[in-house]
Structures are given as structure tokens and as C-alpha cells.
């Protein structure tokens, strides 16, 4: 670099060469910039594409159409298992009747099918005594095979599905009794040990409850703090202390908030573990600085003439701020709150400490019920060895990213729509 200055320009030709070199260096430098941006955006594309390609199959599920005889005697005896077995062995009459063979046959459909049959009867008792076609979930290996994730060319010992089952799947396919259908249970059930039955409803409800606690606590407190600091606080040491505090809280690692929650909310105050109320409390402390900082910016952006005009007409300072400045700052405040909520929705680490990474089957009905949240569900499933869960993990991730997209989109829309230049 410094060689340029030291070069003695002896001739026009040398000068031209130097200029050429400098122009090449310029182009190279600019190329580095473009490469850096392409690397970052390229990763984003690969990342999203890989998640979508892994996850989109999670929204459909292989189902098997069984012809079930809803026999009154069996239902009264409560032996739905026998009802299912009869229906399966009618489909495959030469499957053999030994215990082991019956079990392999039953393994075509999900282990929860028995309960599904019972629920069908309970939902519609008129079905008793009739013979009906019922679509039931296929078991995880069948599902994975049907989706093409298991290579049938592998030797039998190396794949989770037997040759006999493969032949049966082929027979079902020929009869039009097996098909990929929209995975309703993914959106209507809680977690399950069986990947084909696992759903995200419990996690979504848990997330919603925790976020409700978060918004109810952190939004008013955040806006009140912002109003105080921007409009009323005297310029003294306490105010400075509060300001420094808020800026630093915004940079505290989220897991430290989890430690606070564990030590204070769970152990000192005795709040329930794994409950949306405790998780929401921690999330609201974490979101508070975000909301305060963005609300302060929004309030500061309102021209002082708003308050001055109101005060000139006889309003008190409180009236001027609450009746005129705050409404004008509302869109900015709201945008900040939505962005804070989006961050809280994606947060997992502090909830790990609060016991919200839990196996939750029942959809939580209240703020103190055991529950989990959507990102925690992703974390749990990512750890599960079953093949079917990999797909579910990616599908749950897509749902999570979808929620975040909607929330951030809403924030951008609000900002665009209400952004004003005073």
C-alpha cells in the first residue's frame, strides 16, 4: 500500500500501470464486500431451504383406511384392541395368527389407533353396530417409508421396517387404502412418544399463555418507565442509575434471567415450575428493556410543541403527556412491543431453567398448568432419536418461523402505516 507513495513515477507508462493496479485493487475490495454479503444471504437461503425441505413433509401424514366393524358386543366389553385386530386381519387374512405375527401386523398402524377408535365411538355413538371405513394414522416406520425416507433396497436388518410390512404396504397401496393426508393431529394434539401422533397444540397454547403474561406485565410497566424517564424524571443521580441499568439489562445474556427466575421466582416466591406464569414472568423481565428503549425513542420523536400547545391551553404536564404525546407515540411504542414479544416467543434458554422444556401431552388450560413453549418443543424433538421426530422438528420450526414472520411483518406494517414526519 505504502509502496504507491514511494514509487517514483518515471514515465507515463509506469503511471498507467500504477493506475491500473490501483483500479484492480479497488475492484477487488468491492468484490470482497459483495462476497461477504452474498455469503451471509447465501447462508440464509440454504438455511431456510434446508429447514423447509426437511419440514414440509411433517404437515402431511401417511394414513391407512381400515374397514372397521363397530360391533356392539366388543364396544360394550371395551375391547377396541380386538376390534382393530379383526379389522387388520380381515385386510390380510393370511397374515398368520401367532402372537408375534399379530404384533407385526398391528405395527402397520399407530399405537394410538385403539384410542382413536374409542374416541370415534364416543363422539358418534350412532356408529355402533355399523361397518365403517376409518382413516387412521400409519405407524412411524410405515410413514417414513411411504414418504420415501427409508431405502427399501437396504438389507432387512438395517431398516426399521420388515419385508412383510413392505409387502403389506404395497398391497394397501394397490387397494387405495394408504395415502398421504393433511396432518390434522399435528395441530390438534400435544406431545407424544410416538412421532406420528405428536402435535404442537400444547406448545402453541403454552407459548400463547406465557406471552400473554409477558405482554400484560411488561407492556404497561415498560411504557410507564419510558414516560417517566422521558417526560417527568428529574435529571439526578437516581435517574442516571435507572438509565444505565436499563441499557445494561438489555445486554444481559438471557440464560442469566433464567438463573434469576429459578432462584427468585421458583425458590423464594414458590411459583410453580413449568407453568406459563413463571415462564412469562422471566420473559417479561427480559423483554422490559427492549420495550422501554423503543418506547423512549417513540416518545422522544414527538415534537415538544405537542406538549407545549396543550400546556399553553391550561393542561397540566400529566394531561399534556397522556392526552397528546403518548397517543402520538403509540405506533412506535406498539412496534417496539411487538418486536419484544417476537423475541420472547423465540426464546428458549431462560425457560430451560424454569422447567418449561417438558414433555407435555395435555393442552394447558391455565396459567399454572404444566406447559411447554414452541421453541422448547423444537429443542425436545431435535433431541429425540426417532426418525419421524426430525421431520416434526423441522415442521414445528416452520410454524415458529411463521409466527415470527407474522409478528415482525405486523411491526413493519405498523411502522410504515403510522410513521410520521413532524
Amino acid at each position, binding site marked *: 500500500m505504502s509502496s504507491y507513495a514511494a514509487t517514483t513515477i518515471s514515465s507515463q507508462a509506469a503511471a498507467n500501470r500504477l493506475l491500473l493496479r490501483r483500479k484492480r485493487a479497488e475492484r477487488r475490495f468491492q468484490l470482497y464486500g459483495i462476497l*461477504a454479503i452474498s455469503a*451471509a444471504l447465501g447462508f440464509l437461503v440454504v438455511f431456510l431451504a434446508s429447514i423447509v425441505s426437511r419440514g414440509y413433509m411433517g404437515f402431511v401424514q401417511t394414513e391407512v383406511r381400515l374397514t372397521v366393524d363397530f360391533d356392539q358386543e366388543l364396544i360394550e366389553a371395551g375391547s377396541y384392541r380386538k376390534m382393530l385386530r379383526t379389522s387388520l386381519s380381515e385386510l390380510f387374512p393370511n397374515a398368520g395368527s401367532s402372537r408375534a405375527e399379530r404384533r407385526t401386523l398391528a405395527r402397520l398402524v399407530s399405537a394410538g389407533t385403539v384410542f382413536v377408535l374409542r374416541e370415534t365411538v364416543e363422539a358418534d355413538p350412532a356408529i355402533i353396530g355399523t361397518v365403517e371405513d376409518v382413516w387412521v394414522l400409519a405407524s412411524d416406520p410405515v410413514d417414513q417409508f411411504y414418504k420415501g425416507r427409508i431405502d427399501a433396497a437396504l438389507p432387512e436388518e438395517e431398516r426399521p421396517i420388515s419385508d412383510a410390512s413392505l409387502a403389506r404396504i404395497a398391497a394397501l397401496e394397490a387397494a387405495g387404502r394408504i395415502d398421504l393426508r393433511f396432518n390434522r393431529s399435528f395441530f390438534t394434539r400435544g406431545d407424544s412418544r410416538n412421532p406420528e401422533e405428536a402435535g404442537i397444540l400444547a406448545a402453541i397454547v403454552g407459548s400463547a399463555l406465557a406471552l400473554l403474561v409477558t405482554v400484560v406485565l411488561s407492556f404497561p410497566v415498560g411504557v410507564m418507565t419510558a414516560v417517566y424517564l422521558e417526560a417527568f424524571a428529574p435529571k439526578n443521580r437516581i435517574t442516571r442509575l435507572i438509565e444505565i441499568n436499563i441499557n445494561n439489562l438489555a*445486554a444481559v445474556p438471557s440464560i*442469566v434471567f433464567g438463573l434469576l427466575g429459578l432462584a427468585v421466582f421458583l425458590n423464594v416466591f414458590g411459583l410453580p*415450575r413449568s407453568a406459563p406464569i413463571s415462564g412469562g414472568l422471566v420473559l417479561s423481565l427480559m423483554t422490559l428493556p427492549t420495550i422501554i428503549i423503543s418506547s423512549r425513542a417513540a416518545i422522544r420523536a414527538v415534537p415538544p410543541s405537542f406538549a407545549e400547545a396543550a400546556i399553553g391551553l391550561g393542561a397540566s404536564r400529566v394531561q399534556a403527556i397522556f392526552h397528546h404525546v403518548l397517543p402520538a407515540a403509540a405506533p412506535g411504542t406498539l412496534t417496539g412491543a411487538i418486536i419484544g414479544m417476537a423475541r420472547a416467543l423465540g426464546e428458549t434458554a431462560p425457560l*430451560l431453567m424454569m422447567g418449561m422444556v417438558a414433555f407435555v401431552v395435555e393442552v394447558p388450560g391455565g396459567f399454572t398448568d404444566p406447559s411447554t413453549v414452541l421453541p422448547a418443543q423444537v429443542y425436545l424433538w*431435535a433431541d429425540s432419536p426417532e426418525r419421524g421426530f426430525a421431520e416434526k422438528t423441522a415442521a414445528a420450526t416452520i410454524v415458529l418461523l411463521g409466527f415470527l414472520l407474522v409478528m415482525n411483518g405486523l411491526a413493519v406494517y405498523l411502522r410504515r402505516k403510522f410513521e410520521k414526519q413532524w
Partner: protein
Amino acid sequence: MLLSYLPLLIIALFGAGAFYASRARISAAPQRSLPGLPGHYGWYGTLWTVVPATLVYAAWTIIDDRVIRNVVLSDFPDLSGAAATLLYVSIENAAAGVMTDDVPMASVELLLHLENLSAAARFALVTAVSVLGFFWGWRRIRPELTARDRVETALLVALFIASIIAILTTVGIVLSLVVETFRFFQLVSPFEFFFGLEWSPQIALREDQVAASGAFGAVPVFAGTLLITVIAMLVAGPIGLMSAIYLAEYAHPRVRAVIKPLLEILAGIPTVVYGFFAALVLAPSMRNLGVDLGLTISSESALAAGLIMGIMIIPFVSSLSDDIMTAVPMSLREGSYGLGATASETIKRVILPAATPGIVGGFMLAISRAIGETMIVVMAAGLAANLTANPFEAVTTVTVQIATLLVGDHEFDSEKTMAAFALGLTLFIVTLALNVVALRVVQKYSERYE
């Protein structure tokens, strides 16, 4: 259940009633110019009705559990500590209808009786305080009352209390970390914690193991954190800085308006999603690549976690550097161009030196973000504490250890859980220091060009 929320309903109803009653009273008063709007008088009445009653409700709710617990457990004077807690939990469960064996039924009945009694007493007390407040406030509603001033003062007090919550949070964090860390350092010497080379906290869980067994040397944990952070910064530093340079100095404003938010998406993706990608997509393919190249790459290698973390913090580097470079005065650029420098020469010799303090601040913020990041490393980095600088091996980090030591642990007195708090305090102090210094550097810098 109903009885526990009923007092709040009563308070709300009486509060609303007080508003209308007080407003009606002042509207009926024969005076034209009042020191407040009728609504202010209404709010004045509401405050007297609601605030004392709510305070009583909160205080009662906080205290009654402990009182009941003490009364119930007073029948078992020889129990203490964990045994008492265990007994009390099983009594509570039995009271809630969960069948458990070996629960003294007399205590269960006593508990239920006391709970009912407490709820009824709370209801009566809250109602009484609310009614008293109502009449106290209502009686004071007179035209001379400076209602606007008083209501506004009350509001300001509320605003101030709200802003104190931020300080309380910090105090809570510091206290909870310091108390546990102090207890930890009574069992394990700080010297051993900060300089010991062996970290295996799970061993100390066994009863026959002495706590000071050399298992709490946190150096490998710190080293692992450092290794992953260095890898992350090697990714995020160059990419982030070059992106910022391009966006600030070369890109057309319209291109910039599209690219900048796109880059910031990287910081908005939940870290658990990055962790999923690192653990299930990147790590296996890196291991396979390693097999092809003849390298042994662990499936929980520091490299995979570091790479993904680096990508996550690109926007932290690029956004701040971009802002800082845009803030460099135009006159510096023009001077450089006037002397015949090309754009890249101007950037390298004028803009970057001028922006260095701010860029350093941005890097420090990114480092603090990387150190405190949890989910990526929990999912993609290892659990075993290896003291190594080889990025292909598995290492563990401070956040991974905190998470694994505390998850699923209900008892709270072992060295293991206290060690997690000691790690947490270290993490808190390091990130806080990085952040304070970074903010100061950036602030100093921006003052220079104002």
C-alpha cells in the same frame, strides 16, 4: 378457587362505583371553578378504594402460605429442612385430591380447614378495607380538594415505581447469583474454581464424594467458551465488517434498504432453530466431510457450533459498524478523494481509522452476545470439558454447563447447582464489563464527530 379471585372482583366493582359516586358528588357541589375536572375527583375516590385494599390482598396472599405451613408443620416438631418440605408437599397433594400414602389425615384436614379460613378472612378483610377506603375518599370529595394535583402525584409515584423495577431486576440478578456463588465458594475454593484444570461436576453428586475433589476447575469450560467465541468471531468479523463497508460506502441507497433488513433477519431467527440446524444438518455433514478428508471431526465439534454462532452474530457486527461508518463526516471522504485516492484507499486509510473505536465497540458487543448465547451450544457443542484448542474436538461452554447443571434438578443445595450460579456470575460479570466498555467506547466516538 372462586374465593381467591372474588376479592379482586369486589375491589374492581367498588373502584368503579367510587369513580361514579365521587364524580356525582362533586358535580352536585355548588361551585363553578374547581381545581380539577370532575373525572379527577372520580379517580381520587377510586384510588382510596382500590389501592389500600389491593395492598392488603397482596400482603395476605404472600404471607398466608407460610403461616399455614408453619401451623400445619408445628405438629411435627422433630422434622426440619428437606424432610419437612417433603411432608408438606405430600400433605398439599393429598389436600388437592392426589392420592398418596402415609399422609397424616389430620394434617390434611387441618390444611384444608386453614386454607378455607384464610380465604374467607381475606375476603372479609379486603371487602372491609375497600368499603372503608370508599367512604374515606368519598367524604373528602369537596370543592376545595385539589383533586388534579393529588391524582397526578399518585400517577407519578406509580410511574416512578415502574421505573424502579428495572433496578430491582438487576438487584435480583446480582443477589441471587452472589448468594449462591458465596455458598459455593465456601465448599470449593475460588482459586480451584478459576484455575483448576478439571471439570466434572456430575461426580460430586454422589454422596461419598467430597466436594473439593478437584472436579470444579472451570478452566476447560472457559477455554471452550473462548474457542467457540474465537471461531464465531473469525466468521462474523470479516463477513460483518466487509458487509458493513459495502453497505455504507458502495451500495446504492435502494440496495442498502433491501439488504440491511435481510441481514438483520439473521439476528431475529430463534437460536434454537440455529441449534437445530447446527446439530442435525451441519455437524453430520461436517463429520462426513472429515471422514472423506481423513480428519476426525467430532459430531459435537467446536467448529460447527462456532460457525453457526458466527453467522448469527454477523448482524451485530455489521449493523453497528455500518452506523459508525455512516457517521464519519463527509468532509473526510471528500478530502481524501480530492487528493486523488480511490474509494477503497479512502476506506482503508481514512474511514476505517476514524471509525476504529466504534467498530471495536461493535465487535465487543458481538463477543458478549456470543459468550452468552445458549441454545446453539447446548444443541451443537459437547458436554464433556476438554481442554483443547482443536476446533474439530468437542468442547463445552459456560452456558452449556449452566443449562445442564440446572435442568431437571429439583433440589437446590448440591455443589452442582451452586457451581452453575458461580458460572452464571462469571458470565454476568464478563458480559457486563464488555458491554459497559463497548457502550462507553461507542459513546466517546460519537461525541468526537458531533
